[in-house]
């Protein structure tokens, strides 16, 4: 997981063209345990997710990039 997550995750969310609410529903569907408010805090670097929650979020964004046919991948915590 990158040292500084400030803004990188939220920039990825914007590139994925998802609202925070829409991202949360997808993240929840992939097993994410954070609330929508916690997710927002992860996105803006106000709260640091556990490696596992970070991976669920990265997976959510990466599946969305695949869906859009975008050549982009968020690294996982063990990459």
């Amino acid at each position: 997981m990158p040292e500084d997550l400030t803004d990188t995750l939220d920039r990825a969310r914007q590139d994925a063209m998802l609202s925070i609410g829409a991202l949360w529903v997808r993240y929840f569907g992939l097993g994410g345990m954070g609330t929508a408010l916690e997710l927002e805090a992860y996105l803006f670097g106000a709260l640091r997710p556990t490696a596992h929650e970070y991976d669920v979020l990265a997976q959510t964004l990466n599946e969305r990039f695949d869906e859009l046919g975008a050549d982009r991948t968020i690294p996982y915590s063990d990459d």
Partner: protein
Amino acid sequence: MDPFESAGEGLGPEERPAAGGSGQPADLARGLLRVAAIPANREVLDAALRLVVALARVTVCGADGVSVCLVRHGALTTVAASDDTVSGMDRDQYATGEGPCVSAAAEGHWFHVRSLDDERRWPAFIPRAKERGINSILSTPLRSAAEPVGALNIYSRHTAAFAAPELDLASLFAVQASELLVKAAVDVSVEELSRQLQDALRGRDLISQARGVLMERHGVTADAAYSTLRRSSRQHSTTLRGQAEDIVTSTQPPAGDGR
């Protein structure tokens, strides 16, 4: 090559119904949209929007294809399109994340591209549009309450196809489509949200079952089981949910056995 397979062959500009001039196409549109009545759910709303697209296609002079795109699941989606070229044009814009339709839906004002040859905005999208034989585009925003929520897109094979009367007609159709959206807004959001949550719960359930199977098989923790799922889904270019489903299915006896 005509990119618009089903798009009014044989109708030259002079044979098309006059736009704006007699006021008849606009009256026709108003009348038919009234018939569409208040959409009660998404299916009805989508049908009404398809009607708007069909009407815009025949009444706007120079229109070779029309589409309506809306924000659904937090992302732009084409909900009605007059043909495949038009849906392709929309898809190209979602994929590149740019274009008049994306801009109109995000910024809430209209975008008019008179000639794709002279267009400097959207450098990733414009070449794709040209490949599809398009030469001018008019995207008008749709609004639900004050927020922009989508766009009405009109595409033409001809350069500078749209002038003042066409711009007026396009905004009339956009206003009508927006009214349909406002009326349907409450139903759409409640229905849509409950559907999304149900689907998300089904996904979580499958994933947690698959994690259980992997924990049992490999004697690993829940988080390690998740990582295994995630890695194999990336390896097989499938979704994590699809991967979980395969694992859960693999534990079931083959159909027909044990009878």
